[in-house]
């Protein structure tokens, strides 16, 4: 296939990918969007195969590799439970990162096949692009593996910090930049591999100090990195489809990180430098946990309150995902609707472990998406609502964020749950949430604490609603 024709076809691939993302602007068009994405991918694979000189022995290995990957991917896609989506996405990012590294290494050792010059005498522009691509790819790879392990529970979700951490990262960062520059004058294998090792190391180091509930930011950030890595390789290979896709994915991840940071009222840097609620805040908790009266109730009380309400708002959080309570919740809502209680769902932007996590779980439980509202759309409704049912959320409902400038979560947008006539708060114990801040809501007169597992409690309420 001529180079011009394949370039035009790669451009079409890029356009199909843009349409794939565009489709996600509403659930109705989203399935069509995914179809565009698949078409674009098939087109890209076909063009690349037609553009290379195929020889038989390698074709067989290629088909085997493609089939193995396809089968593994297919099995994962069908078997994975929806609650495991954050770690799945993190795991997938690591694969993109590693693939980028492998392609770059391959291009480094046989640049002639890629049209980049000869071994250790690669065109200057190409070696810079390659260096950037391989470095970002390696960071994405190890960073995503750590994120995966934290989300999967293979590693503690709490921040891991040690003295001099930021200095070490800074030194490594400078080293990486210097190595890329040095590659321009000396393309030796040692320098190239040192660059890869330093990048792998920094990927690991920048993710370990970030705690579990900051994972939405981390996953979005790694999503962005995987895009930039793809773009870097795209420049090396002079491939339009890769450049367009890399830019799309890169900016998509960056926007999601921004939205997540805004949802926590923290700067991106603050999240990345890690350690939320580690030192200064822990002393805060001690002062506040003096004996304050808390009203606690059981499923029967909760059922009674909701039965007699005319409207209920359900606030979901990560705890719902952990307890797998979404199906029980849906059952409860069905019962309430039958007795003409108006029910809607409220989702905070950072609820769960990745952007949109709660929405997917509710969708899985057959909750229609037009009953689910974002923070800004529903926050004014709490004042006219009888009951708020808070399940698995904590910090995002804490009124302290609006009142106490000394609190670490001050300024974070929160759901105005306390404005409801009564609040039902499902929680296993009185322990504070991720931010390490005591939730003032627990001690309010209109709050009834339901101490139990989220799923168990919801199921009990369902029984009492009959």
């Amino acid at each position, binding site marked *: 296939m001529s180079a011009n024709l394949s370039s035009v076809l790669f451009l079409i691939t890029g356009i199909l990918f843009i349409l794939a993302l565009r489709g996600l602007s509403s659930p109705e068009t989203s399935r069509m969007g995914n179809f565009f994405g698949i078409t674009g991918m098939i087109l890209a694979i076909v063009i690349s195969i037609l553009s290379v000189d195929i020889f038989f022995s390698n074709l067989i290995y290629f088909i085997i590799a493609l089939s193995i990957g396809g089968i593994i991917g297919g099995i994962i896609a069908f078997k994975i439970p929806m609650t495991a989506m954050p770690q799945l996405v993190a795991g997938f990012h690591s694969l993109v990162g590693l693939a980028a590294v492998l392609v770059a290494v391959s291009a480094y050792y046989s640049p002639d096949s890629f049209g980049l010059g000869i071994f250790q005498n690669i065109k200057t522009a190409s070696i810079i692009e390659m260096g950037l691509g391989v470095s970002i790819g390696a960071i994405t790879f190890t960073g995503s593996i750590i994120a995966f392990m934290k989300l999967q529970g293979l590693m503690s979700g709490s921040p891991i910090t040690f003295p001099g951490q930021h200095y070490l990262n800074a030194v490594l960062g400078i080293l990486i930049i210097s190595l890329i520059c040095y590659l321009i004058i000396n393309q030796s294998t040692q320098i190239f591999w040192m660059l890869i090792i330093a990048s792998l190391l920094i990927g690991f180091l920048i993710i370990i100090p970030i705690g579990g509930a900051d994972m939405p930011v981390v996953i979005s950030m790694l999503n962005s990195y995987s895009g930039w890595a793809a773009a870097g390789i795209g420049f090396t290979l002079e491939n339009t489809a890769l450049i367009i896709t890399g830019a799309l994915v890169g900016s998509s991840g960056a926007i999601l990180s921004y939205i997540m940071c805004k949802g926590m009222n923290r700067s991106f840097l603050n999240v990345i430098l890690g350690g939320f609620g580690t030192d200064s805040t822990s002393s805060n908790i001690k002062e506040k946990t003096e004996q304050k009266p808390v009203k606690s109730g059981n499923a029967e009380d909760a059922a009674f309150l909701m039965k007699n309400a005319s409207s209920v708002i359900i606030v979901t959080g990560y705890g719902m995902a952990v307890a797998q309570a979404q199906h029980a919740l849906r059952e409860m809502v069905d019962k309430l609707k039958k007795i003409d209680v108006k029910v809607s769902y409220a989702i905070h932007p950072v609820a769960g472990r990745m952007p949109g996590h709660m929405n997917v779980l509710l969708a899985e439980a057959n909750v*229609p998406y037009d009953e689910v509202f974002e923070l800004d759309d529903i926050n004014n409704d709490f004042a006219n609502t009888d009951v708020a049912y808070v399940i698995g959320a904590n910090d995002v409902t804490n009124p302290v964020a609006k009142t106490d400038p000394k609190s670490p979560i001050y300024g974070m947008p929160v759901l105005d749950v306390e404005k409801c006539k009564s609040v039902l708060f499902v929680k296993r114990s009185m322990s504070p949430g991720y931010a390490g801040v005591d939730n003032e809501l627990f001690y309010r007169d209109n709050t009834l604490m339901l101490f139990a597992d989220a799923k168990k409690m919801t199921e009990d309420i369902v029984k009492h609603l009959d």
Partner: protein
Amino acid sequence: MEIDPFIFRLSIFILSIFIGYFVVWSVTPSLHTPLMSVTNAISSVIIVGAIIASFSSIDGNSISFSNILGFIAVTLAAINIFGGFLVTQRMLQMYKKKEKKNK
């Protein structure tokens, strides 16, 4: 003076960032998880590089180090492509509108 082809690619890159910016802001927040899985799937278009690596040859037929890296990269990218698009499809199928009557 002739313009370096790099400048053209850079232009494509920067304009694509802008397209990405506007398109992604129009994505509804409830679909942010499918957005991540689909962006992950499309970034596996890196498979085009893996294909070149798989078929690169220095001296005809023997399988080189670069080829092996290429095959591994093809496998990884394929996991992502199939896994990413299928899981997105699975998620999107769950998003339903309010039904008029209950089952």
